């Protein structure tokens, strides 16, 4: 690629990427242009999670299908990939070739498994920190020369800034969806999620259960120990719910002493089991002081709208409360 074209290409990319703050859009737009920009087969992106010490893969080139996919929850522990860790720690690019026996064996094995011959790893650095990794991969055995590496580093600068901005934006948007005491999804978000879950269930025919929960005696806890004691009880309930949900369940705090869990694909028995598990956990966390009254409703012929589903579960929870609390009832409807 001629220098003039490279400059134009970089500027165009910078404009394209900065015109979105949605991470999937930013990543997608880069992926579409990566091969043309680098002259390599593809360029993959990962984000660095220093807390968990892993790389989270954002895109992956699939050789056999000749396309880039966006994998879900693909994590690479950095402990298993010392060469990658070096790239992130020292913020320096590194090349790996399958044909070079002295290169890192873990990286070479991974490349071979994917049907690739060469790799150029570059750190994505934003505001001084390594926020991720760009991997330029090629199906041919090739050496990236100094000009290639320099160009790719500039490319990384552009991509890193855009990815970082998108991540920051996602974080603050996420905050607006969360209840501040428990960090569960808030009422606003619950309503959106329930509506989507009801629509999905209607399309697919899959069951959908809703569990509504009222913490028992929150008023008394508040009166005795102040709002801080009340908050602690709310957080305990939230932890109990989080720890008892199945993968894909959505626990929310609706406000006051009220919580809910959306359970896609659950039967009444499965929903009751989640509730019983949460009740048990809450008892353990609160050393026997806290309990809740729960109600379960199932979406179906009788309960068509999200509101009907919610009302029915809420009434069941109310019956559980008037029966003395610390139990979960399933709506007869």
């Amino acid at each position, binding site marked *: 690629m001629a220098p003039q074209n490279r400059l134009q290409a970089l500027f165009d990319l*910078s404009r394209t990427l*900065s015109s979105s703050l949605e991470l999937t859009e930013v990543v997608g737009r880069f992926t579409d242009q990566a091969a043309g920009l680098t002259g390599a087969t593809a360029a993959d992106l990962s984000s660095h999670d220093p807390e968990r010490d892993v790389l989270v893969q954002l895109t992956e080139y699939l050789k056999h299908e000749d396309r880039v996919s966006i994998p879900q929850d693909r994590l690479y522990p950095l402990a298993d990939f010392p060469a990658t860790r070096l790239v992130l720690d020292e913020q320096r690019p590194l090349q790996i070739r399958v044909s070079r026996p002295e290169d890192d064996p873990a990286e070479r094995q991974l490349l071979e498994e994917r049907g690739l011959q060469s790799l150029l790893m570059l750190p994505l650095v934003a505001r001084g920190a390594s926020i991720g990794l760009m991997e330029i991969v090629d199906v041919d055995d090739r050496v990236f020369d100094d000009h290639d590496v320099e160009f790719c580093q500039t490319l990384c600068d*552009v991509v890193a800034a855009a990815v970082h901005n998108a991540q920051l934006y996602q974080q*603050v*948007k996420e*905050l607006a969806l969360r209840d*501040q005491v428990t960090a569960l999804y808030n009422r606003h978000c619950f309503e959106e999620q329930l509506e989507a879950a009801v629509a999905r269930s209607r399309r697919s025919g899959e069951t959908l259960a809703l569990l509504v929960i009222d913490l028992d005696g929150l*008023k008394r806890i508040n009166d005795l120990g102040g709002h*801080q004691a009340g908050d602690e009880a709310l957080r305990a309930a939230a932890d109990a719910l989080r720890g008892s949900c199945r993968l894909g369940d959505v626990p929310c705090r609706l406000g006051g002493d009220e919580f809910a869990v959306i359970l896609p694909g659950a039967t009444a028995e499965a929903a009751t089991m989640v509730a019983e598990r949460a009740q048990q956990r809450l008892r353990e966390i609160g050393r026997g002081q806290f309990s809740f009254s729960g109600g379960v409703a199932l979406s179906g012929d009788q309960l068509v709208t999200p509101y009907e589903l919610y009302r029915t579960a809420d009434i069941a929870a109310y019956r559980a409360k008037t029966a003395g609390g610390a139990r979960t009832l399933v709506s007869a409807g």
Partner: protein
Amino acid sequence: MPSPNRLSALLELSRALSSSLELEEVLEQMLQRVARLAGATGTAVSRWDREREVLVTLVHHTHGSRSLATFDGEEFELDRFPLSAQVLEKQLPAQVRLSNPRDDARERRLLESLGFRSLLMLPLVARGETIGLMEIADVNDRAFTPQDVEFCQAVCDVVATAMHNAMLYEQARDMARRDQLTGLPNRRAFDEMLDEHVARAARSGQPVGLLVIDLDGLKKINDGGGHTAGDAALCAAADALRASVRAGDLPCRLGGDEFAVVLAGADAAGALVVAERAQQALADASGGVYSFSGGVAVEVIGSASELYRLADDAAYRAKQAGGGRTLAV
């Protein structure tokens, strides 16, 4: 196509501006570059407030002196500046020269009063929408060539995108700090603000007052009239607080039936006056139906959580005493 120099300048600008999502930082970065890039003597960036039909100056830079006016910049009514309005609406650049008697008279007068002879106005367009105006001015009488204009448009593209991103970020951050029902700052914002005020009080020796408020009988209101009635009561309480605080006081909704007001520089008597005013406003707004229990605590040195605990305790005692009143520690 721009020359390699201009292209690398544009790339550098794009990279510099995308290194932050804070509007002020983006503008600061821009300011350092645009006048120099355009080879002109002054630059100004304004935001278009469509509802009020005004241009709000965010930042301007002249003759080496500069001023960042991100929050309370000067405003220009668009009906008085038809040429600017046209640039925004048609998304086309326009030039004004003092020496050209056919150019818009108002723009020329304004230009002259600022000590300039030539002006290039360009729309800032992000994702198809005009968000503001870039003005590039020169003390010399000059005509901006088509190449100049083209380059400045490319600069505007970069600036508009970065500004738009910063504005979206600001909106999202604001959403995360506001209670959705009442529009007051929420508990997350309250925790941060109280921490800041207590720290400042410890430094300055000025007291910080805290009023914690519990709406009386929200449970009964909810049980009687459903959540809509409860929501209306909460909004009435929020409005009463807004109408009763002094300038600089910060009313917040902490969640449920609980509100708070951070009163910088207030002693207990001052805080009680605010509380009484709010109690009266709430009674007036609801025909005497709604009331609250309030607690006041004041601190010079200490911790935010201690201050909150004291005020919350006082509010609890007010509630125990029958509600509809405010007690100080």
